[in-house]
């Protein structure tokens, strides 16, 4: 793999993203909502002298759970499937570069664009907290952003995988929205129903919850923000007692696997199919 080629492609993808309406809308919505959430939390909290990051952080976690997967999935699926549909993918592959370089370059560019969007949202929020004289630990804040970023990268990988399974951008968009719905709502509903009917043991439920990367992100955020694991009921306590200080490493590793596996799947599928 030629790193200079990957960088050129990443740069092009980044430029493309900044000029994409989808991306601008996502970034704007995320920054706007984050700003509104922080301002709202701060204004309420500040009047009682309490302006800790815990509650603001919890609101941001909820926002990230909604927006980051939507951003990653749609940008990934649309970006790649659209390129395929327009024929630009084939034209790029007619140049002296390989499929791995192409996909990694595109992924890197989109990942940087998403990093930019999240940095904008979190950065503006941090400025507002500072301006209102609020309290937040820089480390907590950064950790939440890094976890959010990992979740967005998971979604981006899934978007790439979807694009490698379908041919048109419309289908890719539909599939991305479907997967988003599954991850955010339907998966949890299914897990709840199954856990109730099959009377899952705690360890089984813990493992089942970790299948959904959104739950992994949420659990990691809860732990990082210093909330007691009891908030997540017996499963949280079980996880905390079983894995102790390694729990965070476990959760981050799962997110990393969620990033790598769909991306590898996408590369394999595209390599087999070529630019047909």
């Amino acid at each position, binding site marked *: 793999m030629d790193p200079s080629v990957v960088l050129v492609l990443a740069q092009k993808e980044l430029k493309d993203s900044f000029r994409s309406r989808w991306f601008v809308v996502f970034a704007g919505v995320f920054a706007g909502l984050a700003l509104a959430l922080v301002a709202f939390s701060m204004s309420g909290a500040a009047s009682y002298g309490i302006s800790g990051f815990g*509650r603001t952080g919890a609101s941001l976690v909820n926002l990230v759970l909604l927006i980051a997967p939507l951003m990653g999935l749609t940008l990934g699926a649309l970006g790649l499937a659209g390129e395929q549909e327009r024929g630009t993918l084939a034209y790029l592959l007619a140049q002296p570069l390989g499929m791995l370089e192409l996909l990694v370059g595109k992924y890197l560019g989109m990942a940087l664009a998403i990093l930019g969007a999240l940095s904008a949202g979190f950065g503006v929020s941090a400025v507002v907290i500072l301006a209102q004289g609020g309290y937040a630990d*820089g480390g907590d804040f950064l950790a939440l952003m890094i976890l959010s970023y990992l979740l967005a990268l998971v979604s981006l990988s899934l978007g790439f995988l979807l694009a490698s399974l379908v041919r048109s951008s419309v289908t890719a968009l539909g599939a991305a929205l479907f997967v988003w719905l599954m991850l955010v709502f339907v998966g949890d509903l299914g897990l709840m129903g199954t856990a109730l009917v099959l009377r899952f043991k705690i360890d089984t439920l813990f493992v089942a919850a970790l299948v959904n990367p959104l739950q992994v992100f949420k659990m990691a955020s809860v732990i990082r923000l210093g909330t*007691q694991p009891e908030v997540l009921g017996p499963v949280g306590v079980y996880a905390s007692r079983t894995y102790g200080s390694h729990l965070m490493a476990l959760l981050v590793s799962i997110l990393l696997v969620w990033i790598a596996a769909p991306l590898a799947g996408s590369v394999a599928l595209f390599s087999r199919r070529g630019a047909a």
Partner: protein
Amino acid sequence: MRSAFLAALPVGFAALLCAGSLGARTLTVTPSDNLQAALAMSRAGDTVRVVGGHHQGHFKVSVPMTLAGENSPILDGGGHGTVLAIDAPDVTVRGFHLRGSGDSLDMENSGIVVLAPRARVENNTISDALFGIFLRKADDSVLRSNQITGKDLDVPRRGDLIRIWYSNGVTVEDNTLSQGRDAVLWYSQGLKIRRNRALNSRYGLHFMYCDDADIEGNTLSNNSVGIFLMYSRRLRLVGNTIASNRGPSGYGVGLKDMDDALIENNALVDNRIGIHTDSSPREIDSIQTIARNLIAYNDVGISILPDTQRNYITTNSFLENGEQVQVAGSGQLQGNIWAERGRGNYWSDYAGYDRSGRGVGEVPYRSESLFENLTQRAEVLKVLAGSPFQVALDFAARAFPVFRPAPKLTDPNPLMTPVLPQGVPALPRKQGRGLAGTATGLMLALVAIAGLPRAQKDPRRPRRLRTPTADPLIEVEALTKRFGAIEAVKGVSFAVRQGDVVALWGPNGAGKTTVLRCLLGLFPFSGQVRVVGVDMRSRGRLARRFIGFVPQELSFHDRLSTAETLEMYARLKHAPLARVKELLETLGLMEHHRKSVRALSGGLKQRLALACALLSDPPILLLDEPTSNLDQAARDDFLSLLSDLSRAGKTLVFTSHRPEEVESLATRIILMENGKIVRDTQIKGTPSEAVTDADAHSELKDATDILASANPNECGLALEGH
């Protein structure tokens, strides 16, 4: 005996001792004097004045007296035992810094131990002590304005910073306790606990079997539990600030088997659970009053065990708690009062209205949440808490009443505005660490990312293509390509020599474009393709460096400009960026270089594609229907460019369905049908070879025959035009 002891004293101390009066004396101890000795010889009513100094050892006061420190004298236990023990009544100790007790929990090593009534311990600093101040049977004592810091140990190994044991009528005022285990107040009646601060400990205050205590104006924050009240009667908890107590149980206020407690006008903020009440009140004829408290930003506002009754919970403000009211365990809340005299509580999630303007909602507040209801039945489901699913589920339950759960409580008269507590201590201000740095870092990252697309660098070492020595330049052997069940190309073999201009000719679906794409290695195929001797399947990236490609469908990134497009492809091909300007000028694109690609005409796009193909000056050009989207003038123009390239020595392979294009450009025609080559004819010499008029005439005639035989309908139409 006494004279012998005095003889042992330092001269200075003895002199000061003599200066005292004959009744209540004042003994002054300087840094060089022996405090132990001064205490041993002091009498009831004496004042021992200690001026500065560091006094090592374990000290004991056995007569009623005043021990007054000036300039913060240090009493240092050296890490062993108890620093100061008082076993006489009416002793006052003030102005000292006591430190370095032992760390034995069994021996209850303390800063100060008081074992007699009416002690006054004031304005002392106690640090590095296992237990801070320990009162045992010390009725009517006063602990005032002391700063007590525990040892830096794990919480279970720490001691209690204040322990009051069987001591009635004790007043504890204006003390600050931090880094201890608990402040324990047990078996003591009529305590007055006012304006103290308890921070970073396990239980800020822990009461057990203490009736008639007043707990007022205290700040309890960042402990595991703010205050736990147990097995006591008539406690008044009024005007306290209890915040950020977030340990495993994390109660702001815990109430267990309490009777007639009054919890009023407190700020309970940012705890895990604001108030937890378990079997309180306990006795059938007692009640519990929880009124005018601010219960805000807690994970759970108030948690009540289901068998708990006779709680009067009114005029509180429940503000933005994660869960406003929790039933701890299964069952419904019954027998508690949520409104009195037409006034209930303020609920920040109340969605009613106040038509009459009385400040009270017209519709009762119902605390109901399907998710909370479900987690009450199956607690394991709490793992899903805090996700969008929880919000969606509760929204669905509200939208479809069939799913509506039974409410945990109904407040018949919810207030429309919060009632805020008055005169409570301000919350401790936290300082953010590193947030400014984080914010700056994020903004810089954003600027850096935004600037990345503009960073243009010439490749450090633009790669020059070596002049190909292989001939033929392209070798194709037994090329076969399947798309599922369809075999698009069936065992095709041919070779292209340097300088050839080869037209792949044939009807639609003959496999021309597929062959071209296989030559580029765009998808997997069987057979062999070698470009300049390099195998396309195994070393496609290298082989493609010798090829410039002009596609039929011009597939550029519309958001890039003409120049940006060329620059990007130049960098992909490791071509020098100077080549971009050169080609913009050569191909007449300079005046369009700022235009977005989507704004270019078909002819200009075709030129751009050719420019991209020529960036690295490759020996081979592959063109797929290069003029199919052009009008006549643009077509002529483009063909003339291709002729020039051919004359300059480029090897061209192109597909086309236009006979005039083939006639004017091709030196060789490969006719394909159904994925096979049916005829391969050289119609001209390469531009470098001399061709006689007779040869040319004969080959052109052959070419026309080939065109006619290839696809009569298509050729007919084309020839008519021609």
